[in-house]
């Protein structure tokens, strides 16, 4: 204890949501997230204060960690959204915008905090139970026998991030790749519990996006000049080492070793290593891979006997390589390597991508390991593409848990909002139940309706956030889908029809519209009848969105429940 310092007393804020400064900050954050939302979202440059690299993105997973606020309430919301992203990858902006809208709307309508919490919770359970129902009109079943919906899902995610700067053809190329990679990692032959395979991503800067490709097996970057004549289609006996082959005996412990000056311990160890090498050659091993370092003499020895040597593979690639070769790594230096420890690799060849030379290893038989090579023109765009790729991968995997998707383009939000409004006004018409519900929440029916209005407005707000070019958002009064009206459209244009709705499922079906920021009489959103042969063109992940909805409401409820903020300033 060299320096004793008094701790500064904490800074306290009473009733933070009534504080104008805090509200201003919440509003700012909402506007920021809103402007990033959707395929026409605005991009953000992220740069640190010492002039580090500039990142361009509109993804919440990039922007949110870069935001720093001294306001604990904002950080609370930020971490909630980030936690959601870390589990589900998708719908982070949705969760953020919805949560902040709930807070803002509750304040604007001067709703009591405790009441807002209860009504939010009530509306949320109504939404989640509706989304789980079979007759839910905004849910689409994913059929794994056709790739159509999977392609739409992947395409929606890729186009929702404009910072990738992809043309239509490039979007199609990447989404096809993503769906192919996803299908490749599902093993089809093994019965019983299925272990999903892995996709390893390699990025190459400076090549056109259309050069991106998917390969079965693994691509491992190599710096050694690899003799092309070695490439063969035959099976190669493979051994994996997880321990260092550099001659350091780390397992002996921390004690010191004193050796006779005449005794060369290094030489003894090297002899032992060469002994091991001799065994490998005798066992006709053709590929020797080590996670750590291989002694140069041993490398030289093995190479001279026609063994392909790869060292410093790293932990990350060991597992997929083990799966690919069908073997487990070896870590003993003295014992004879049992023949079961050898694996097999097929079709060794090299691939050239820009400045990168990679060794392509393929499995003998089916192994659910594949490699995606992502190319883009510059590093910033490549980074964004990588983020989007990972997100697409995760979302496609989530469909295995729950083979559904939700209509995109804001249609789910408007539909849910109309549904909640309709359901609860039905409840209020049957006065008996309504008074019970209201009494259960300890409020009057009028207060209850106000709470519902706040919830629905916030949902509509998310749908409205999709429009950034000065246009307005509308909803038809039949199916409650979301439509965008461009800024220069006249009344006649609207009467003549607005084309397709946000998700592309409804065309011009209704002539009755309402703008999303206006009052409208509640109505029952009609489900689409089977006669429509249209397929949705924009889909969102079901699992991610349902979770985002829940997380957003819970976080808003928490923020509403905070009465006092204590900030440690030490």
């Amino acid at each position: 204890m060299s320096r004793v310092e008094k701790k500064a007393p904490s800074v306290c804020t009473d009733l933070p949501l009534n504080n104008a400064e805090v509200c201003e900050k919440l509003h700012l954050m909402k506007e920021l997230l809103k402007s990033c939302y959707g395929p026409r979202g605005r991009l953000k440059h992220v740069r640190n204060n010492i002039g580090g690299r500039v990142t361009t993105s509109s993804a919440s997973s990039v922007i949110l960690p870069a935001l720093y606020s001294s306001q604990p309430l904002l950080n609370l919301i930020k971490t909630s959204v980030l936690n959601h992203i870390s589990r589900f990858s998708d719908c982070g902006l949705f969760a953020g915008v919805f949560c902040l809208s709930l807070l803002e709307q509750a304040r604007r309508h001067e709703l009591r905090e405790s009441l807002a919490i209860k009504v939010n919770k009530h509306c949320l359970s109504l939404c989640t139970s509706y989304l789980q129902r079979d007759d839910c009109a905004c849910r689409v079943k994913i059929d794994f026998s056709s790739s159509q919906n999977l392609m739409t899902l992947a395409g929606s995610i890729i186009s929702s991030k404009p910072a990738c700067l992809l043309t239509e053809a490039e979007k199609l190329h990447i989404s096809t790749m993503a769906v192919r990679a996803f299908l490749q990692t599902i093993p089809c032959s093994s019965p019983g519990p299925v272990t999903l395979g892995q996709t390893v991503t390699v990025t190459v800067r400076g090549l056109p996006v259309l050069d991106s490709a998917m390969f079965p097996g693994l691509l491992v970057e190599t710096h050694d000049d690899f003799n092309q004549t070695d490439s063969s289609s035959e099976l190669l006996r493979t051994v994996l080492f997880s321990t260092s082959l550099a001659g350091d005996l780390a397992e002996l412990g921390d004690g010191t070793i004193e050796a006779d000056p005449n005794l060369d311990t290094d030489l003894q160890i090297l002899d032992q290593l060469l002994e091991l090498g001799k065994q490998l050659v005798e066992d006709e091993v053709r590929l020797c891979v080590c996670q750590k370092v291989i002694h140069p003499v041993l490398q030289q020895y093995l190479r001279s006997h026609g063994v392909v040597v790869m060292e410093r593979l790293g932990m990350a690639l060991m597992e997929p390589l083990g799966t690919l070769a069908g073997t487990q790594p070896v870590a003993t230096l003295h014992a004879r390597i049992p023949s079961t420890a050898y694996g097999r690799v097929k079709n060794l060849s090299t691939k050239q991508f820009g400045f990168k030379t990679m060794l392509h290893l393929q499995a003998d038989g089916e192994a659910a390991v594949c490699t995606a090579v992502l190319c883009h023109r510059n590093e910033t765009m490549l980074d964004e593409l990588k983020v989007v790729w990972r997100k697409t991968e995760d979302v496609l995997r989530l469909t295995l848990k729950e083979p559904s998707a939700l209509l995109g383009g804001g249609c789910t939000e408007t539909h849910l909002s109309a549904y909640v409004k309709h359901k609860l006004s039905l409840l209020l018409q049957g006065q008996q139940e309504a008074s019970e519900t209201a009494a259960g929440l300890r409020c009057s029916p009028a207060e209850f309706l106000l709470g519902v209005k706040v919830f629905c407005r916030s949902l509509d707000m998310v749908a409205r956030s999709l429009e950034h070019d000065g246009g307005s958002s509308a909803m038809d009064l039949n199916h409650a889908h979301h439509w965008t009206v461009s800024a220069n459209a006249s009344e006649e244009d609207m009467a003549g029809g607005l084309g397709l709705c946000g998700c592309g499922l409804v065309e011009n079906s209704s002539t009755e519209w309402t703008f999303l920021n206006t009052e409208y009489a509640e109505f029952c959103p009609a489900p689409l009848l089977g006669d429509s042969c249209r397929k949705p063109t924009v889909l969102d992940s079901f699992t991610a969105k349902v979770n985002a909805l829940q997380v957003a409401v819970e976080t808003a409820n928490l923020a509403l429940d905070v009465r006092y903020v204590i900030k440690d300033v030490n």
Partner: protein
Amino acid sequence: MPPSERLPLEQVLEIVSALEAVVLRSFGPEGGQVLFTRDTGQAMLSRSGTCILSALHLEHPLARVVVESVWKHSRGTGDGSKTFILLLASLLRGISKATSRGPSASHAYGFTEAAKAAAAPYFANKLLELVSSDLDDLIAVNVVPYGFCVSLEDFTTHSGRLLLASFFHTRVSHVHCSYLSELTCEMLNRWKYKSDLPYISFQFLSDNFPALHTPVSGFPVSSSRLIEGQVIHRDFATPCLPSKQQPVKVVVFTDYMQPILLSTGDVLKLGYGGGVTPESSIVHFSAWTERSLESVIAELQSLGVSLLLSAVKQSDAAVALATQAHMSLVECVSEEELSLFVQLSGVTPVSRGCTIQLEHVAALSFCRPILLGGHRYVQVAFCESPKSSKVNPCSLVICGPGEGQTDQYICAIRDAVCMLMTTWEPKHTSETTASRGTLQSDKGTASLDMTPTFQSTANKPYGLKKCVFEPGCVIPAGGTFEFLLSRALPNPSSDTNGLPSVSQLLANALLSVPRQIYSHSPKLFLQAQTRIMSLVQNPSNPFSLGLKESTPGPMVDLGLESVTCKYQLILAVVQCATSVLRVDTVLHTRTALHTQSKKHTIFSRASTEDEAED
């Protein structure tokens, strides 16, 4: 002479009132949460009084003493930290009012500062005397008959849930109370030792709680659940091989499987005094360690073991050999988890150098990887064995949108178990109690002790006296306890000096609690008071009747609370008030690292040490 600071009663009151103002925000049924950020930037949410107070980083030594007492109290009982501050503040307010108004007789002479200063410690001593001698009997006679005892069989039923729900109502957001209390009830049921006292299983849960829960952030709270068996918060070090064998045999290692040849400080001398023989080669030693590792693995294989749990990180060679022998290995298992595992499976861990025998092998019904949030853990479930057949081991998975929330829920559940432990604490029959009369309450569920002679306990510090109520004694919440006790306190108009009696002071302080509960509508306060008073007038209709029958009584919607916790709370508050009031001066000493006997000086009269140096 170090600089000193007078500590008049007004200032003490000011400090405690400031603490009260912070705590009040989250007190009662309408209370909200307090968000605080640590110096590390980590955000925490809490409605727990202890957490809030300790986050304040208070500077004044007196405030620190108060917070420390709150902390000690709530660690013991798990409950009542906010009420603690509230009671303390109103008690001090009462004393301050009494002393400033002063005895009517002293008006003629002028009420001197010295007399005023002497009055406060006088009250404090009287109060301590009152509660340490009479309080338990007052409660036993006047409060307990209106409550009832919850037996553990009842726990799944209405009243157990209600007790937990009312506890969670004071600690977490309202919308999640019922969900959390269901979950906790379910957990307690599964962990119930059928033959033992409920106290034993609460004690076990409380001791092993760190190993029994997993926080998962990024999911809604409604995803929280119980899962079978125990979760080991580590991933497999080897690829998990699906084991077809049933049951799964497991061995626990506390040390390295591969012997460490040289520990720190050892010196290995090679090649001195002999030629280069095979024995003098370094390779020889390294080969020896590998061979002994192989023999351990072979031994395990012959016993049919397929899972290894290790407290330490094993060597690369051990991992690779285990993998090749089709064994799964889990490394770096924490001490707490390992000890729980050993208790539940009844296995003896393998330590350094001992040979593995049958007693080291435990059987599991399954062992599988489990994905919780972003982490992959290992879930193990135990086979039926004589030891574990009594309970159905399960682990708690607590989900929340962020870390702050999961921590809050975990804290609340831990404190709930602690509260239950206090409530069900077995009755200690005090040897000093000379005569005992057992009184059956009208429903026959609660038997209570009457101790007509209490002079022998009067001089004992309260810590020595253990719980005197029947285990599991509860009373309807919402101020019932406070109303009943304040009514029961003896009420002589004033003592000989013209000062108000201490029991009156305590009664007034007690009433401030329900007043605060109903602070949003004073009408409700009066209604509640009238209802309880009318029930007292008409003893044929105590609450217990309403509760026991299926028709809910008038107060049941307010929940239940534990009588023992309340009793200990009052004791702790009065003790804290006494220690605070006996201090009159704060000495600011300059010695930087003076650490000896802080506690002794701080409570002693006229010398309080500034604690700022720690």
